[in-house]
């Protein structure tokens, strides 16, 4: 187990460097960011040259990347064009997005798995068909449509919520945005759980458990659910990373000042430091979430052993 973890951690190193280099190059090919700082007029050349020197933009790309990575390892993610430290931006943005992601994951687990179990056990019945249809609708409607509709209905028409989230972004304010963010994944979780449950219901070990005379509740929770959840856990695990990065649309609709907002602004202003910094952290989150998922397998399925 320990060796497995070490091997996985070592594998992360090339992935980490590759991903950051790619992002760095992508932001770089967008062109000279300093020219965008002066509106529709030309920046005065002396100031532009000084800004370029200060942000290291006058050096060749490989050198910029090397300096940047060197700084990252000392915890310095650079400065955005508005003079704020990128670490400062992260400290304000990540807690918000993490809260939003947790709310979304909670919805996925609670609603998604419940519905999945319910439909899996009642395959072919009206409940199953209804939920199946509903998930189809949710999957086919883009997030921003659901988001804007909910915002207008709940926020403007019925005045149940505020259409936008305050800068504090408390959990209760994030319930609706979290639901919107989770909606598509939630539908997938439902379908995954349903299929998995329906399949495993006919498995030998379930029949054995029933034949042993175990109570139905225990058969479902201990035997059926635990085994059926393996693909679902994989999905949710990888989804954590996707949700954090993908929150950009939801955050925009509900005016949440999280990672998506900073990334959007960073891309618009071509602030290499902001974009690369945030994406680097997102890459790390993604890698860590994947590792945790793989380790969870062993817990859920005693047959899986890592050596």
């Amino acid at each position, binding site marked *: 187990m320990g060796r497995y973890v070490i091997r996985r951690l070592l594998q992360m190193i090339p992935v980490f460097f590759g991903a950051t280099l790619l992002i760095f190059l992508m932001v770089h090919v967008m062109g000279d960011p300093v020219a965008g700082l002066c509106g529709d007029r030309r920046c005065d050349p002396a100031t532009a040259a000084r800004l370029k020197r200060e942000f290291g933009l006058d050096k060749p790309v490989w050198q910029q990347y090397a300096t940047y990575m060197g700084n990252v390892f000392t915890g310095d993610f650079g400065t955005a064009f508005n003079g704020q430290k990128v670490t400062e931006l992260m400290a304000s943005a990540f807690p918000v997005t993490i809260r939003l992601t947790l709310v979304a994951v909670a919805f996925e687990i609670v609603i998604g798995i419940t519905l999945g179990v319910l439909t899996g056990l009642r395959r072919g019945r009206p409940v199953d068909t209804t939920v199946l249809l509903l998930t189809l609708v949710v999957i086919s409607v883009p997030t921003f449509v659901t988001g804007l509709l909910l*915002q207008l209905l709940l926020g403007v028409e019925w005045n149940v919520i505020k259409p936008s989230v305050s800068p504090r972004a408390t959990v209760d304010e994030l319930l609706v945005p979290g639901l919107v963010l989770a909606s598509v994944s939630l539908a997938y979780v439902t379908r995954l759980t349903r299929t998995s449950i329906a399949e495993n219901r006919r498995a030998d070990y379930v029949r054995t458990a029933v034949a042993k005379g175990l109570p139905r509740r225990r058969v479902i929770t201990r035997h059926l659910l635990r085994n059926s959840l393996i693909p679902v856990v994989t999905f949710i695990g990888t989804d954590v990373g996707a949700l954090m990065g993908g929150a950009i649309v939801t955050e925009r609709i509900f005016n949440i000042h999280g990672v998506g907002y900073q990334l959007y602004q960073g891309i618009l202003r071509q602030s290499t430091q902001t974009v690369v910094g945030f994406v680097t952290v997102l890459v790390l989150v993604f890698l860590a979430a994947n590792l945790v998922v793989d380790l969870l397998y062993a817990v859920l399925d005693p047959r899986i052993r890592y050596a």
Partner: protein
Amino acid sequence: MRGATHAKWAAGAVAVAVAAAGCGGGSGGGDGSGVVRSSWGDPQNPLEPANTNEVQGGKVLDMIFRGLKRYDPKTGEAKDMLAESIESKDSRNFTVKIKDGWTFGNGEAVTAKSFVDAWNYGAHLRNNQKNAYFFAYIEGYDKVHPEKGDATAETLSGLKVVDGRTFTVRLTQKFSTWPETLGYPAFAPLPKAFFDDRAGWLAKPVGNGPYAVRSYRKGSTMELRKWDGYKGEDKARNGGVDLNVYTDNNTAYTDLMAGNLDLVDDVPAAQLKNVRSDLGDRYINTPAGIIQTLAFPFYDRAWTKPGAEKVRRGLAMAIDREQITETIFRKTRTPAKDWTSPVLGEDGGYSDSVCGDACRYDPEQARKLVREGGGIPGGTLKISYNADTGSHKEWVDAVCNSINRALGNDRSCTGNPIGTFADFRSRASRQKLDGAWRAGWQMDYPLIQNFLEPNYFTDAPSNDGKYSDERFDKLVNEANAETDTVKAVGKFQDAEKILAEDMPAIPLWYQNGSAGYSDRVSDVALNQFSVPVYEQIKVD
């Protein structure tokens, strides 16, 4: 300056959703009585006076600073604010005397030194101030801010403190209307606290305006409250202003509808259709000092050869401005008739006849002129624009359609999107664009000089097209040296007539500022810089 951005898909979806839900107005919330809740965007640069060149940062500076002059929000006239007198005998050496008794929010007195230190800071290359060029007219600028290499002086030699309330300014050339440029926030005074602890000051700026910053969370909110120690006449008529950052102006608009916001100073394009029915007379649409043009590459031989001016003139006549401003901009822009802006007023140099027939849609004449001029160089006119912000695609396509229709050739004009604004600007300023491109000019101060000189004078900073004409340059120089304002304006207008002949840039339209507000507030207006005049807003 750059406007806020619209995400097209989101805007479209809102339009659909609004139509579906039959958007109704919300009732105003009564919490935090007397405080205006206003939408905001994250300022692009640190909030220093000489470093702020866009509206969002400009809003804050307009509330917390007062300079020597201030532009009347209605007429645009530069009126004395802190200045007791600004005198000059030769239009080159000025003696500035400031009023007594003004202080900064931290108790420091506003002295001649507060101005001189602030201007020296703003001009010095070391401080990376994006508005440093404002001080370029002051003698010694080339020493503290050389084109190349390091600064060789610490301060501007043209600035001298005489006593606590007096300082003198020596300019590099005659510039009779120079005092009228001093209403721009870049010329604001700075307290000693700024120089002692810049980081601390930026975290919570202290100025001498009608409002004081109570709290500032970078990137999300700023709370400003009425400052009781304010000395000026224009005291705040409300308890304060809360600025909230919105990433998407559609969300801000929704919040206004729901009653969570009092003022949105940028109505999203997709909402312009319903804004009248949503807000009634709580929607304002007033001229701002912004003009949009199509600029041409004079560094490209094909556009300078004899006859090319006929082609440009023909193209100008092939654009149906009335129709485009009506259908695409829903009258938030007005067809342009000159190279300045109506906010200048007739006395300030605005004229609705300079461009004349060339700015009127006339497809037949257009076809004739383009043919006489030898046709469009290369056969097709490419209009470059940035695709990331400001929904430029719609109008560029409309302009091209109009040109194609007028010239009877589907290949006469085509749009050329460039991915990001920064990339677009970087290509334009390095003369890397071929064909025409969208150019915009937001005035720094309401003077005709500011619309003409930076854009069309030989090698002027924003003359990206490298247009050059000796007669134009000569007239501008004469106008600047003219001590009589009326005569100076007349000279500038003469210079503008040369633009009408040469058509170095095709005037498209004047941009308006638009805003919507809740029924909780009244007396809302936008000034010529499309910044809300916050101190006049009353909260019911």
